[in-house]
């Protein structure tokens, strides 16, 4: 299975600021995903980030609010821009599937609180 590291693990931010979350994988992967998990709720896909192409955003999520970079096959960033208290959530990076395994693996997440 892939080992996924997310930084920071948690942060407390002020309203109106931005936070960039990093996701590092220990092997090359084609597909990376960013999810949001609001307090007490399940996971919602924000966007799919493939290396060499623009991220694909799900309904309700826009690039201006959640810009994503995917500079290579082992790294991605998600920025939460102009934050408000409603952005307080856990943000999770996921990778996969591969050609041989139809499994998505998840990082431990970034716990964001916006004051």
């Amino acid at each position: 299975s892939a080992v996924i590291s997310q930084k920071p693990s948690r942060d407390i931010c002020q309203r109106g600021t931005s936070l960039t979350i990093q996701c590092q994988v220990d092997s090359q992967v084609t597909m990376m995903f960013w999810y949001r998990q609001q307090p007490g709720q399940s996971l919602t896909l924000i966007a799919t980030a493939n290396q060499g192409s623009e991220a694909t955003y799900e309904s309700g999520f826009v690039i201006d609010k959640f810009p994503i970079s995917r500079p290579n096959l082992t790294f991605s960033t998600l920025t939460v821009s102009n934050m408000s208290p409603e952005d307080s959530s856990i943000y999770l990076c996921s990778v996969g599937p591969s050609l041989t395994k139809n499994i998505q693996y998840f990082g431990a997440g970034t716990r964001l609180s916006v004051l």
Partner: protein
Amino acid sequence: EDQVTQSPEALRLQEGESSSLNCSYTVSGLRGLFWYRQDPGKGPEFLFTLYSAGEEKEKERLKATLTKKESFLHITAPKPEDSATYLCAVQQSAGNKLTFGGGTRVLVKP
């Protein structure tokens, strides 16, 4: 639009008391149904993928089954370490996106 509904929302079990979790789904062409376990403060941990009705998979005290409309996760003789939130997700045949249900929080008391 894909929909996944899990029940119950929460389940309290005594150690050794077997039970089942339900995942009902509607999807336009199912590629796979996934079960994950999530512990507090951690990301989801992969348990099983099921692909076709009638398929079953087992891991220790967990057994997952799939029909055309729902999946069950059976927990046999649970132990306190089985306490977690169990998440179900469906994957469309057209892509790789996972749509998750709301999860079932399981608490196993000794």
